[in-house]
């Protein structure tokens, strides 16, 4: 069931939030052993929030479309008093002293936070295999990865362990797992949603967004998340439309560009076919579909894997055993405490990226790597600008393949990085993009990516909604 369906039942008092929340915890108890989507479950907290939601629903005061709805939060967003681990040993027992802005908004809206979902450690990864605690499995095929890094959130929604979820997206971490798990995932425009309380991976790329079963829920959740936050300097003071109201209206005359550079070599044949079919449907529904080329996209992965690790190496310096989190207590002096704490606290992928980023920023290499990447970032942005001179939205696969097998790419970081080819350019340009189901291959979902102009979430949501209304993909359920 989706949030908008459940909200109607809650409002009509046919169902209480407490009953709903309990039913979700029952389902979680049944499935979680197989899916492993959650790092932390908070049944006590959730039931208290549900009771409060029921009071609001009964008195009809402060009722929002999300009041009483069970939601899962990726475990890299701070929840006051509820441990926030980033799936890292270094934050195993970290209980944030404050709520992230998005979490505060969820609480104010009366949503019920059921728990914190698994991710690749510090959101670094594309498979949720880089968690210090557990590997999350794809509800459609438990031998496959759910994608990453928001794999826990995507798997929880796909498996029906949560109605909706929050993810974060730095290079595709919402859209790729949404694609792999057959759900809807939206990365908003950079600056649309506050990052305050999102544990930083790469600050100039990170953005929080919804992971939901359908486009309507996506719009509902975005309504709550979007908007300026004085605590985040990079959040933008731009008007926020009511996204749910703009879903209908169709896509007649909409100019849609199919990105040819993401329909060539390296993209799975069946994925390409599904995306092509989706583009054809857009045309049949009245959109004007053309092919566009963004020649610098082939440089996006290299650009990203210099910028993101550079920022990460800086953002992750603070995990040093002094103020919070894990510390090696045997160390006799400060320097060896630093070394041992960070050696034991971080996993391999995080260390790899800290090394890469430190190198890219270090004396003698800054210009050749980091600065060069920033300049190429400008070129990629310009390519998008040119494409949007001709188009209102762009289409591509969300990922080059469907979900791969667990363990398949863990030994080859570069090939893992290349699986983000379709999503990474969007983060570099700061644009909004969503992924929604557009087919299946070998029993696994295929994701269609729709990219919009900066701050034009409206258009891509409307395009996605129109597509969804004319297809059945979103109705398919994973059978865990």
């Amino acid at each position, binding site marked *: 069931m989706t949030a908008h369906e459940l909200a109607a039942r809650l409002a009509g008092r046919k169902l209480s939030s407490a009953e709903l929340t309990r039913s979700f915890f029952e389902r979680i108890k049944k499935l979680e052993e197989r899916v492993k989507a959650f790092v932390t479950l908070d049944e006590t907290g959730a039931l208290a929030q549900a009771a409060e939601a029921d009071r609001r629903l009964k008195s009809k005061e402060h009722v929002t479309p999300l009041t009483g709805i069970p939601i899962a939060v990726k475990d890299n*967003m701070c929840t006051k008093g509820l441990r926030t681990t980033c799936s890292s040993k270094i934050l195993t027992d970290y209980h*944030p002293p404050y709520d*992230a802005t998005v979490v505060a908004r969820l609480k104010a809206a009366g949503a019920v936070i059921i728990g914190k979902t698994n991710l690749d450690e510090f959101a670094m990864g594309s498979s949720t295999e880089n968690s210090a605690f557990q590997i999350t499995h794809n509800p459609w095929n438990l031998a496959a990865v759910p994608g990453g890094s928001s794999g826990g959130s995507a798997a929880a929604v796909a498996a029906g362990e949560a109605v909706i979820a929050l993810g974060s997206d730095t290079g595709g971490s919402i859209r790729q797992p949404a694609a792999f798990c057959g759900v809807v995932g939206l990365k908003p425009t950079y600056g649309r949603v506050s990052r305050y309380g999102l544990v930083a991976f790469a600050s100039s790329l990170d953005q929080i967004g919804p992971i939901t079963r359908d486009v309507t829920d996506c719009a509902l959740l975005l309504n709550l998340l979007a908007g300026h936050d004085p605590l985040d300097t990079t959040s933008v003071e731009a008007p926020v439309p009511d996204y749910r109201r703009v879903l209908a209206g169709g896509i007649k005359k909409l100019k849609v560009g199919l990105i040819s550079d993401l329909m060539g070599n390296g993209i799975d044949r069946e994925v390409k076919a599904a995306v092509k079919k989706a583009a054809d449907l857009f045309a049949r529904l009245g959109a004007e579909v053309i092919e566009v080329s963004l020649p610098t996209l082939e440089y996006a992965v290299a650009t990203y894997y210099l910028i993101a690790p550079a920022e990460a190496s800086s953002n992750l310096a603070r995990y040093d055993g002094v103020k919070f989190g894990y510390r090696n207590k045997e160390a006799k002096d400060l320097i060896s405490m630093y070394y041992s704490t960070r050696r034991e606290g971080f996993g391999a992928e995080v260390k790899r990226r800290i090394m890469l980023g430190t190198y890219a*920023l270090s004396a003698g290499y800054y210009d050749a790597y980091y600065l060069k990447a920033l300049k190429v970032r400008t070129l990629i942005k310009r390519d998008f600008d040119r494409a949007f001179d001709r188009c209102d939205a762009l289409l591509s696969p969300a990922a080059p393949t469907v979900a791969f097998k667990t363990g398949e790419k863990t030994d080859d970081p570069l090939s893992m990085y290349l699986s983000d080819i379709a999503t990474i350019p969007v983060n570099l340009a700061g644009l909004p993009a969503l992924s929604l189901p557009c087919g299946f291959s070998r029993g696994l979902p295929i994701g269609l990516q729709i990219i919009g102009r900066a701050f034009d979430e409206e258009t891509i949501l409307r395009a996605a909604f129109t597509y969804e209304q004319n297809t059945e993909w979103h109705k398919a359920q994973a059978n865990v």
Partner: protein
Amino acid sequence: MANMKHETVIGLEVHAQLLTESKMFCSCPNKFGAPPNTNICPVCTGQPGSLPVTNKKAVELAIKTALALNCRIEPSSVFARKHYFYPDLPKDYQISQYEQPLATGGWLEIEIDGQVKKIGITRVHLEEDAGKLVHVGAARIMGAEESLVDFNRTGTPLMEIVSEPDLRSPREAAAYTETLANLLRYLGVCDAKMEEGSLRCDANLSLRPAGETKFGTKTEVKNMNSFRAIEKALAAEEKRHAEVLAEGGQVVQETRFFDDVTETTSGMRGKEFAHDYRYFPEPDLVPLEPPAKWTEEIKNGIGELPRTVIARYMKEYELSREWADFLVYHELTGCLEGALKIYKTKPFNYARWLIVELPSFIAELNKEAAEKSNINKAKSELPHPWVIEDAAEKAAEDNYKKNIEVSGKSLPKLNLTPAKLAEIEKLIDGGTLSYKIAKTVLFAAIKTGKELAAIIAQQGLTQISDEGELLKVAREVVKNNPRQAEQYKGGKEAVMMFFVGQMMKATKGRANPELAAKMLKQALS
């Protein structure tokens, strides 16, 4: 070689804590002396997920300073992250400015032996301060068993002012720092207390053969906690360089610490870790592009700069250099000008109150208060900079905890207004009060907060200028001192002083001195 003449080249980096209410990037109070780790929040302790937001006032104060230093405000400046691991730096990077600072290319005029010298300012930029470390088991970091971190100071707005290598002697360096400190205080951007650490200074020093244009190898000197220490430290380092060169040796580029006790500098033991700060633009903050209108407003708010005011006071008000300096750097010009506007008299008269009389009055109050509480007062509550005695300053620095305990017992603020000052001069000029009585009246008014008139009426302190009344007293005095009267009549005019004194005694100081002499002459004739 030994007698070869060398020229000393010095450049200074001055760090000034800005007088804002809140910290640079968060809303924590920017306050000295709170109990450890009470002025902290998720942002200034670097909690995961927290983000900085720039304090507008800090930017304004830095722009104000930069303008006063004749700098160009850069149309676009950016914050950058400077990385190094240290426990007093919660994020293990400091938000600072690097390639694009707030302002560049200015100068500051200093005066040495009556000669004015222009010292170039390379740049002015903004950054955040680090926390404080307390070393357990030893006074210093060396030998300590462990250290404790207090993040109260973390995130305090800090302005760095970098000079060109234009200084040619330790004395010039000290004069530069002092002039700069005075300017910062005058502008109200920093209280510039070196002993408290609100103004800190690092120096780069090198020597080169006289006439040479290339720089010699420099060393960086740190840990200079007063203007005097700057001069001493740099003199010691200058001497050390000269000795090394005289022996035909080579100066090693390194950081050296000044020891206040031995008055020598020493390098760090072992090999110095080569720093690689890995600066990159701070992605969490956006560029500063101060609109011209704002800069203009700030500029208009600066008004006359100290050097101009001092020159004017010397010329127009006929005040000495020392007095003009004092008024300017103790922020007393407003009071003086205000009083002059209300009642025009010789500026000297007002200046004397502010420079001579009030400090001695405050010292009296201090003594009284100290006797009462037997403890030195917390400095932040004190009304004027000169009130703080050295002992109190040291006590505060050594043990700020103790200061917190006594912070409740401080002096009331001096309620001296330009209006009061003008009124007292008017009363003197009008003959109502003698200078001596005026002093009593003014101090009583300040102490009690009452109006001058009320004090005068209450204590019956009006000057006696009634000739008839004074003549009566004069006759009485002459009658009681026949011997002195004889001496006067015999031509010993100096005895008049004695009679005036007797008159004052008889009237409890209320007799108008001029009239008293006149009436005495009449009584003696």
